[in-house]
């Protein structure tokens, strides 16, 4: 289980998280929605210890992430797959090397690594691309390799940062389908950060909305669809209503 307890985080004068609390239960896929620049990716980076909270704590499997020593943090990270917004593949490595890198770190034998690379590429329908470089792949293919790199680790958790941003509708649907399949086949707990509501409805068990640094509402997909909360409604319907909230949501401006 992943839990955020009253987390505060600022970057200079910009307050990003202000009393952020959320629990992601074992086996579920939680979708975190919110406007651009509201701090959704910041939430993800706290889980793997890339950022530390100014106040409050983030726990994974009962361990407080920012209190872990380097070795324990590395052990925690090897349980978590992270799919980056723009895939973050290593340019100088082939697809095979990209996927194998994390497996080498786990000290797996060569044959096991080769097998896992093939399995994970097959799962994302990219068999035969092992020797290609990231520059030779389309945006959608790069994202799928990013997912393959994460699932090859056989993680307990997968974190997706804007998995469908910048993709055409068909490729977005492929990625959504892939996220659902990954959960079904591997049974991993997932946290998906997105502002794509179609994706949120497709892959999520529950949806949480981040607004002004805290959770505005967290509920099942059906409850969110029927919500009466004006801010959540405005967001999920994509209405450019007048008012400060909408403007702030659009600009991600500090308060």
């Amino acid at each position, binding site marked *: 289980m992943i839990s955020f307890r009253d987390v505060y985080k600022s970057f200079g004068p910009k307050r990003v998280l202000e009393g952020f609390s959320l629990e992601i239960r074992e086996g579920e896929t939680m979708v975190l929605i919110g406007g651009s620049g509201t701090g959704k990716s910041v939430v993800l980076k706290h889980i793997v210890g890339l950022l530390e909270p100014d106040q409050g704590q983030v726990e994974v499997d009962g361990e407080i992430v920012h209190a872990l020593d380097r070795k324990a943090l590395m052990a925690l990270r090897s349980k978590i797959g*992270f799919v980056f917004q723009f895939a973050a593949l*290593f*340019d100088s490595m082939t697809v095979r090397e990209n996927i194998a890198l994390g497996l080498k770190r786990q000290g797996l034998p060569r044959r096991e690594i080769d097998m896992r690379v093939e399995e994970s590429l097959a799962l994302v329908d990219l068999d035969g691309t092992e020797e290609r470089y990231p520059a030779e792949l389309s945006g959608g293919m790069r994202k799928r390799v990013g997912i393959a790199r994460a699932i090859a680790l056989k993680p307990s958790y997968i974190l997706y940062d804007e998995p469908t941003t910048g993709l055409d509708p068909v490729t977005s649907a492929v990625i959504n389908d892939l996220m659902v399949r990954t959960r079904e086949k591997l049974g991993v707990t997932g946290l998906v950060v997105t502002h794509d509501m179609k994706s949120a409805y497709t892959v999520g068990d529950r949806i949480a909305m981040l607004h002004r640094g805290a959770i505005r509402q967290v509920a099942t997909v059906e409850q969110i669809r029927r919500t009466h909360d004006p801010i959540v409604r405005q967001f999920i319907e994509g209405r450019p209503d007048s008012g400060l909230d909408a403007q702030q949501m659009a600009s991600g401006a500090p308060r």
Partner: protein
Amino acid sequence: MYENVSVRVASALATVGRIGQFLADVGRGLREVGSWAGLAAVQMRRIGVQSLPLALIIAAFTGIVLSMQAAYSLAGATPVYFVGTLVEKTVLMELAPVLTGLALAGRVGANIAAELGTMRVTEQVDALETLAYNPYSYLVVPRVLAASIMFPVVVAIAMGMAIFAAWVTAVTQIDLSTNDFVKGLRIFYKFKDLWYGLVKALSFGMAVGLIGCAKGLATKGGAEGVGRNTTDAVVIGAAMILVLDAFWAVVLL
């Protein structure tokens, strides 16, 4: 005014703190030998191959000019074989390490800063961390070690090239015999001339590597940030070479 001063002092202290933190992280990264051992060899090949043509060109022209200027400056005042002496002292102790170092501050420093800067802004460094790698042992240590080892190697080759070019120039342009040139080279030669130049080269390599990595990893703000930090890495690297040059002169001579 006091507010301005306190802001500047705080900013300077923060910079010192960041440098200390960076060096401590590199020190910790050094302990993970398994992460950097193979990569250091790759970086050494890359830095060596990348640097050699430029270093050889600079050395060749330096040797030519030095030979001609020595002959011109010493004409009538000292025995002609002093051309060899002047070439030996200036090439080994100053020109080969410093000119090569400055050129490599541009070539190698920019390359390291731009590569790591691009990795930082495209989240590849974050990705590395999430795959349980320490970016200091995986990215920084191999580059700093490679630069520290390869700068003296390249400078030693540059020393040879500069002396060779000076000899060819002396023989063909100023009618100095090979025997006289070699006599001049050897007459005041001390082993310290050589190791002094190579120690300087090692320190230049380490400085260029560390500054390139620090600036690369500190990059923010996309392509503009990569450009800005790459330029900073070259400028600071070149300035640090001159500072270290003066430092070694005071400490070792």
